[in-house]
């Protein structure tokens, strides 16, 4: 492409003014890729440990009960609910709804809050039952 290199390209992160829609989009990618890289590794460890017998399973749960294991599990549950909420928002956007500026901004802010509430409710149930 002769002469194309100095043509204006799409602006990147550093020069956009931050807005709710941009934040929820980045959150969706971060939580999705985080679950893909960390969550699936934990899933395979869990399944492999369960298939391996009591010894390997106890080893797995021992790590998950340590502070770092708890950080990973709470982080993954937050990522799950956040990605789920913003994913459901995408399904709504897919049918062509929710693009009005104010509406879009409100739901961009509400979805991460719903996810935080669901994460809190889940761990409250697990820890208090």
């Amino acid at each position: 492409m002769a002469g194309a290199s100095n043509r204006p390209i799409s602006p990147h992160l550093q020069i956009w003014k931050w807005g709710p829609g941009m934040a929820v989009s980045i959150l969706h990618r971060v939580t999705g890729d985080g679950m893909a890289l960390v969550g699936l590794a934990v899933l395979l460890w869990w399944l492999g440990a369960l298939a391996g017998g009591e010894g390997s399973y106890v080893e797995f749960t021992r790590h998950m009960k340590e502070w770092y294991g708890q950080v990973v599990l709470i982080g993954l549950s937050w990522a799950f609910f956040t990605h789920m909420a913003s994913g459901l928002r995408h399904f709504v956007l897919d049918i062509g709804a929710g693009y009005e500026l104010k509406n879009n901004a409100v739901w961009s802010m509400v979805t991460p809050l719903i996810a935080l509430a669901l994460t809190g409710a889940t761990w409250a149930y697990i820890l208090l039952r």
Partner: protein
Amino acid sequence: MGNGTNIGRVRGLGSAKSGTHHWMLQRFTAIGNLVLGLWLLFSLVGLPDLMFKTVKAWAAQPISATALVLFAVTTFWHARLGLQVLIEDYVHEHANKFAAMTLLNLASFGGAAFGVFAIVRIALGAAA
């Protein structure tokens, strides 16, 4: 059809016919993850405890094992599609992109295969 800009070179050629394939699969696998992820969460939270015997007996049941296999497939499939977009967005050099996509495919199929094998062993295996 011109030959100057990118859009000029493709204008008038019609659609590639496969443009929505990736997008549709992302949605189909997302629905699988949504249903099965919530099922897994509710199932585990609903167990009386998370000791080895309890969890293994639950996972070995036919419906649990079947759903776990489906979950391993839809999550790795969905993750493969999502990470592909991440690579396409940030890795621009052709050789690096090819290497990253190859690695992603190997890891996705390998991970899903190991997950399915582990579930089959839990459900049918004689060991432990």
